[in-house]
């Protein structure tokens, strides 16, 4: 139970960072932290005590019952790829914003009202 709570805390750290930080780069890093927390949570959902990775290896017979659930790992792999894309997108936007405003401070980037 503790590990789940820690994951949840990490998620809250990420959300806190996004809400309170004023620097674009810190916001991007916070959104990354948020994503890692969820990935960790999903991997933990598939874990069971005393089991091994879900890969068959030649000449070492292992029964599938001893393996962890591989599906959450596949999900996490996909979501890591998606997060890579999101981060690249955000970084590109931050770079272009810097070009336009010469700052990373969001309190100074305010041409849109509301």
């Amino acid at each position, binding site marked *: 139970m503790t590990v789940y709570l820690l994951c949840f805390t990490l*998620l809250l750290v*990420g*959300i806190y960072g*996004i809400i309170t930080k004023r620097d*674009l780069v810190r*916001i991007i890093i916070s*959104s990354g932290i*948020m*994503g890692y927390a*969820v990935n960790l*949570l*999903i991997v933990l*959902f598939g874990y069971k005590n005393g089991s091994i990775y879900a890969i068959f290896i030649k000449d070492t017979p292992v029964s599938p019952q001893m393996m962890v659930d591989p*599906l*959450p790992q596949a*999900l996490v792999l*996909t*979501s890591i790829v*998606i997060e890579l*894309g*999101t981060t690249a*997108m*955000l970084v590109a*936007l*931050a770079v*272009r*914003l810097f070009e*336009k*405003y010469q700052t990373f401070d969001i309190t100074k*980037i*305010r*041409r*849109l009202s*509301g």
Partner: protein
Amino acid sequence: MILPFFIIIPLLTAFIITLIAGERDNWAVILSIIAVISLVALSVFCFVTLNGRTIVYEMSNWKAPIGIILAVDALSAFMLMIVAVIALTSLMFSVHYIRHLAPSWKYYALFMLLVTGMNGVIATGDLFNMFVFVEITLFAAYSLVAYGCKAEEFEASFKYAIMGSISSTLVLVGIGITYAATSTLTLAKIAEVLQQKDPMVTLWIGGIFLAGFGLKAAIMPFHAWLPDAHSSAPAPISAMLSGVLIKALGVYVLIRLFFNVFGGITIFNEVFVILGTISILVGGFLAMGQWDFKRLLAYSSISQIGYIILGLGLGTWLGVLGAVFHLVNHAIFKSLLFYNAGSLETAFGTRDLRKMGNVAKALPITSFTSMIASLSISGVPPFNGFFSKLIIIIAAIQAGRPVYAFLAAVGSLITLAYYMKVQRFGFHSRNIVPVEKDVISFGMNSAMIILAVLCLATSVLIIPGIREVTLDPIVAVIMNKTGYISQIFGR
């Protein structure tokens, strides 16, 4: 057999465009228009031949609870049709508009990715696959919002991307908890397993998904990103975002999850009704104070989505009918209004309503179609908006909630008020503003005319006899609590 083509055609077009396009965008235009026309034909064919069945397609021959399936029923086929039609008009509008703005094949490649993502979200029958397609759509949307390379556009896009990443994280948490609770990701199987579980599990999952997809549908407490993103994007993209994206990613997914998978739980319907009503009123009041035409339209989208959510939350046959009908109507007239805004922006170089004038003489088609769209959206008979709002209000009275019916009627009056403002100050003001001749091309005009005709034509959908073959199967899909499971597994 035709289902994977809804995803293959636009995706293949997107990548072929990146391969063969040179400096000019001629090939990109031709290819993407061919692709979207074939999507229109496919989706109409799919909807007509459906007859209340559900088509299930097993990807790479894996059977339903294990592999990823595509499943299209009346609701999905109808949504696919809306996406294809709006995408076609949007492309027709884009050709000239984008040449005016910044011509590039990149626009068309991203546009096809946007269509791919939305078609995927609508056609899939697997929760995680749905998430992946949502992300594909959002990537394309972020880049397209920032397409014009102005400072405000990057700002709006950044805000949109941050909001999107928060909502995706919430959705991913929801997917993780769903998998932990049910050990499956196929929607129909989740529905089957959740019936035997503790109702508290469904409440927890539902709450997280409501926050996640509510952010994408821009229901009231989660609406902050919408006005910036939708008003900063190029006009045809605003039409796609406001017209179909928030419906495909937000409303459609909410319907699928909360009605077909969770089985229409009363407490969520209650939440829908309250959030919907708040969205109607607050969105309307915020729209009234705007002078920027596209910003006003964006706030109006929040308000109109409120009607759809309210109708769904009522949970009665009539309420859901009104919601589905308003969904298609809003897709049509909101896209039309954004095209109007785009053509005004091309002609006058501004979006401020106070700086416009003598539109009726300079741009007769824009002026005329915007009049039709304004009348439709404010609910004046005989246009389609009148019927859908009337049905939702009657449904609220029949469901024994006269207060909500009254508030919805008030919202309709507010809508009328701010579109009166648009007509009075924007289109029929006494300003004389010089306009270049022939800035609005044939494609832009025909896109507007097609949608204006559809504004009138879709009000036919409600006539008994036509309703039985178009809207009723969709409502039947939404209202049938166990039908989705049995249709998918073929029992």
